[in-house]
């Protein structure tokens, strides 16, 4: 289908919907006909449909997230919370390319308190770092790749990257580790509209009510647990009609 024809079809559909809603009216019962900030709320990300990661990279990052935030009986781990989906979408967007940063040369090595001075973007760091991690695992664990290691072995690799004892080829392992840890934790706690914190699981874990907005009745209620469940920018699943 050409772009032109596709646009015709979309426009036609929109017209039909508009006319339909006018003609039919709406039956509202049992729920508010509610739509959250429609211009912001992205469609719920589908696991496995990677935007930035390759089919090999995505599961590796899921496994990294699962060790950094392991599942427990109350709260899912980093994988099921969607942290890798979050990182995938972030790397495909402005964050992945350091958009908005001062990216002019010369790039010189500075001292720590001068801040990051590398031209390497987060997207490049993951693209180069994940194969280097895979290579490291195969070299040190009898040919087994990252995905084939036990949880204890994966933890050992992560500790090695964190303390600098695990040296990757062509890339600084600690830099990779710090980036992944930061991104995984941000994905865990950010609003679910970004693909992580699925079902607001991280917010439920700590009791953060999210994008609720009015605590005037609660500011004076001291040492009492706030009783209401969290709300995302995109609302709550139970605000939407069944099957909607």
């Amino acid at each position: 289908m050409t772009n032109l024809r596709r646009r015709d079809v979309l426009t036609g559909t929109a017209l039909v919907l508009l006319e339909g809603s006018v003609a039919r009216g709406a039956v509202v019962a049992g729920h508010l006909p509610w739509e959250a900030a429609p211009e912001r709320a992205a469609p719920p990300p589908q696991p496995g449909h990677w935007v930035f990661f390759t089919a090999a990279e995505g599961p590796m990052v899921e496994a990294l997230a699962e060790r950094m935030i392991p599942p427990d009986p109350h709260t899912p781990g980093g994988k099921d919370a969607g942290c890798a989906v979050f990182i995938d979408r972030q790397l495909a967007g402005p964050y992945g390319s350091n958009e908005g940063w001062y990216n002019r040369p010369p790039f010189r090595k500075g001292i720590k308190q001068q801040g990051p001075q590398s031209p390497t973007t987060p997207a490049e760091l993951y693209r180069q770092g994940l194969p280097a991690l895979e290579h490291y695992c195969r070299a040190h664990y009898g040919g087994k790749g990252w995905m084939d290691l036990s949880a204890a072995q994966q933890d050992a690799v992560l500790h090695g990257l964190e303390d600098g004892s695990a040296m990757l080829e062509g890339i600084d392992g600690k830099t990779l580790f710090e980036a992944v840890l930061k991104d995984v934790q941000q994905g865990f706690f950010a609003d679910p509209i970004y693909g992580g914190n699925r079902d607001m699981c991280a917010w439920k874990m700590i009791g953060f009510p999210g994008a609720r907005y009015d605590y005037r009745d609660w500011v004076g209620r001291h040492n009492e647990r706030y009783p209401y469940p969290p709300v995302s920018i995109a609302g709550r699943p139970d605000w939407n009609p069944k099957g909607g």
Partner: protein
Amino acid sequence: MALRLPPKDAVIIGLGWTGSILANELTDAGLDVVAIERGPWRSAATDYPPNRAQDELRYRIRHGLFLQPDQTTFTFRNKMAETALPIRNWGAFMPPNGVGGGGVHWNAETWRFLPSDFVLRTHLTQRYGARFLPADMTIQDWGVTYPELEPHFDQFEYLCGTSGTAGNLMGQIQPGGNPFEGPRSRPYPNPAQQQPFSHTLFAAGARKLGYKPFPQPSGNMSQAYTNPLGVRLGPCTYCGFCEWFGCGNYSKASPQTTVLPVLVRKSNFTARDQCEVTRINLDGSGKHATGVTYVDAAGKEWEQPAELVILAAYTIFNVQLLLLSGIGTPYDPVANKGVVGRNFTHQTISDVVSFFDKSKFIFNPFIASGAIGMCIDEFNGDNFDHGPHGFVGGGYMGQVQTNGRPIETTPVPPGTPRWGGQWKQAVRDNYQSTLVPGTGVHGSMYSYRDVYLDLDPTYRDRFGRPLVRITMDFHPNELKQNAFLTDRFAEIFQAMGAQQVEKQYRKAPYDITDYQTTHLCGGAVMGTDPGTSAINRYLQSWDVPNLFIMGASAFPQNAGYNPTGTLAALAYWSAAAIRTRYLKSPGPLMHA
């Protein structure tokens, strides 16, 4: 070649707090005014409405409302002998951008500096002797006094609807307020905000130690308010997304919620957004500004002639425009001569994280506002005898519950692994029972001979102009001050019954990646001696009398408070001098 626009009476560079105040005052005086703003127009109702403003990733982590460094940035080094490198992504401070400036995303902590702060060198020399001050400390008096500024502090607080409890009404100390504040002519326009649980505990702990705690003066509304311009603000809902964020609820004082709605209706006011002023133009004498040159969003260059130029950008950008326009003598730290770039300062901030028994304490840290705090002022300025301590300066300290946003605020006890099951459990266990003051110890930074601004020899902005170079490090005086204050602060949390208290002292070297505050000050300071100040006590350029320079760049050194109340009072003070004296007889308001 720049296209020349019809002349205006006044051009204002930057439409933040001071630009908005000056625009309103000068249009009231009948002048035809244009304001030129580098960033976009921002409107509370449409740019950050309450149904999507509460996005920690977008605004706090990805800096959604701030200047982007690719537009312009600075270079940084600690010492003069080092090579400065560019700040590629913001860290220690967050330069604002767009209409409203920092007033869009500030906490709204609305303080008045102490009377002694304005006569600092005189005061400290009289009390302790000149030899008590470090030899390379370049602090000086402001040339303006607290009694002169009092009516203008009052003007700003009533514009904003500041919520607070007066501590000194015309010399009478008031119960529940800050007993150290300068005398105020009338109470705050609104009562203090309601205090969450942790604040009441902090007040009790502070009282137990003999201090006099008081609610932080806040530009978050404790109740609905209509300001003297007729603009209405709504009550704050304690949503916990204030600092770093815009308030779409009209509950935080900002130019958008206090003055712009009136200003934009005036026929003698125009604003141009997404236009960056690149130069203040001078005539052949070099002593008279003819207007400004700016570049619009399409890259087109324009010249805006004007009789009066008001420079009202952020601290460093004020200094940059002076340096690039050849106004004033650039500061030379070796010869100790020149004024533009001199006496540059920041702040000396530290915090204390306190862990309480989770079976007994539920703090609900997300019930918060940007300036909801319980503070003490016993260790600010010269409110205590520095003689035994061997340093000068100080700061307020307080439990200021600004947020429970979980990317930023999920504290775990020292020694907890940074990831894995133990980390996750510690996050779960401590979120509700740990206090992380959004503002902890808010210490002063005094000025030094080797802390300054100049132009970088290597790095340039998108127009090819040199970036400003920051040379800054902490000096022993500030580190001693911070150690002393942080210890006092921690004692209060211990008195509140904390099980574990983690003191996060401020340490050298100064680190450009470690956020303190956005309170950069100095570089074009005010005074009564053109040998040590760029502007006179009315904020008028000594060199170009039809140029007035607003903002914290005028501060000769930084005090132990947030700067907005004071820089806004200075803006009103300067505007009054322009209206009552300068416009009648344009020329220098002071002679050296």
